[in-house]
């Protein structure tokens, strides 16, 4: 019995990890459409400022996008006039420490650590973070209902963050 549950957990963890690695690659490669397709219809993309983030409905966040604002963010890239991403930042990120925090019938809450290395005309910038996901199964596929990126240095002044973190 215990073994069977452990096995289900392992299978889910593998699936979740694969999903997160794929998301990371799509972001690094600026594959905007494929990345947007990972979102659930009610997805929230949240990058708090000033710590863990209090109430995003009350306090400023770096990003607090609902699904339609995520779409707008992608559309802006695709105009070819989003200057801060022309040329695009060169990016590679390492995602690790993937853990399942909770799950129920159709969703799973996951945490991971990430470090993004960005190179652009200003220089090199490193963006370390703890990421939190709420992934939901939609038609058999995992989709992001929430992605929260808590930058380690978000209490300090931050340079422009115009790629997909």
């Amino acid at each position, binding site marked *: 019995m215990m073994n069977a549950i452990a096995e289900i957990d392992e299978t889910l963890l593998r699936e979740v990890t694969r999903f997160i690695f794929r998301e990371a690659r799509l972001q690094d490669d600026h594959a905007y459409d494929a990345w947007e397709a990972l979102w659930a219809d009610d997805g929230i993309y949240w*990058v708090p*400022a*000033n710590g863990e983030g*209090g109430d995003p*409905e*009350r*306090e*400023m*966040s*770096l*990003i*607090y*996008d609902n699904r339609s*604002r995520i779409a*707008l*963010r992608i*559309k*802006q890239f695709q*105009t*070819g*006039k*989003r*200057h*801060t991403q022309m040329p695009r930042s060169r990016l590679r990120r390492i995602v690790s420490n993937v853990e399942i925090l909770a799950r129920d019938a159709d969703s799973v809450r996951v945490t991971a650590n990430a470090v993004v290395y960005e190179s652009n*005309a*200003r*220089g090199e910038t490193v963006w370390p973070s703890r990421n939190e996901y709420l992934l939901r199964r939609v038609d058999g596929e995992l989709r992001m209902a929430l992605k929260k990126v808590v930058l380690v240095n978000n*209490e*300090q*002044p*931050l*340079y*422009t*963050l*115009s790629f997909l*973190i």
Partner: protein
Amino acid sequence: MSVMHGPSKWASLIREEHVHGSLYVDPAIFEAELEKIWYRTWVYVGHASEVPQPNDFVMKSIGPQAVIMTRDSAGRIHLLLNRCSHRGNQLCLTRKGNARSFTCPYHGWSFANDGQLRAVPYPSGYEGVDKGGLGLGRVPRIDSYKGFVFGSFAAQGPSLEQHLGAAREAIDRLVANSPEGEIEITAGFLKHRVKSNWKFLFENETDGYHPQFVHASIFSVADSRIGGLYGAKSTAVTRYLGDGHSENDLRPEFRRMGNRLAWFGTFAEKFPDYVSRMQGAYGADKADQIMIDGTPHIMVFPNLFIAEIQIFVLQAVAVDDTVQHVTALQFKGAPELNRRMRQQTMGSVGSAGFLLADDAEMYERTQRGVQSRDPEWLFLGRGKHRERVDEQGFLVGDVTDEVASRGFWKHYRSLMDAE
């Protein structure tokens, strides 16, 4: 002052329509600006609503100097420097809070939130020492206008009222958009850092020439009406208000449209409670005019940019390092408007903003570009031939003209030339 002197150093760098590139990149010039501008003139520090209760405090800055803005138990606001008067330790490392006193962790000296030294451990070691002279350093002059708190490191000089001059009327216009006549700063700040000189930011804030180009991407996908306000056919004007301050006055366009809350990209019908509170407060006619005119777009010298729905506080850190502290304006008595203020602010500004990330890109590119050896000068002559004086005696130009930059540099020169 002497007739024997030739033209000043500043006269050789600042001409009527040209400024020299070194003004943005020379570290010695930045040091001179700290002394002549940032540590002399009135600088915006914070808003009274950030320390609403007795004993509240919040960390602020004037250029590279850290400032603790406190409200003492009697309700008075102080601007204290973050340096223990014993051996210089930093006193406060918390962004904000509520404290009657600050105790230095190094040797335990304790200071009241009005800056007075209150107690020292093992006091017998200080027999005969006057504690009165060992209070915290402070910004010697502090004053406020409609809750906006300013500080000046010069013990003497023009009053805040004189410094603000015509900018006061713009602040009046701003707070009139609250049915209670007050704004509040309650949503916390984004701190957007750019590797650029503060003056590139300052001059961009009322540069009506760039939006159509720098912000073309978001204007084209967000069905935004901002773009047209800054077009060649716009009836909006750029106005130099004197004392370094300038504004893009968009009211001519909003009046032409004639719709209440059009300035905010929305309709009065969507906010019936707000409309009725405004009409209750000001009477129907005046309230409707306020809601048609909207909020100002004004750069208050040297560091407070009121940008319709948000404020930016510019912090000059080094010759090529500037932080923009930005947050949504919140209008007292207008909760339904305030939510939209926050949402739009988060979308448009800060490190990831649809608008500001592209402005910041230009700040950093100009900082790099201006270091090229040739041409040595920047040309700020746009619209000089069509500058005019309005009914109130202010210099105005078309909204895309460089009236504001020319005014800024004239004022800058007068401050740098001063003894």
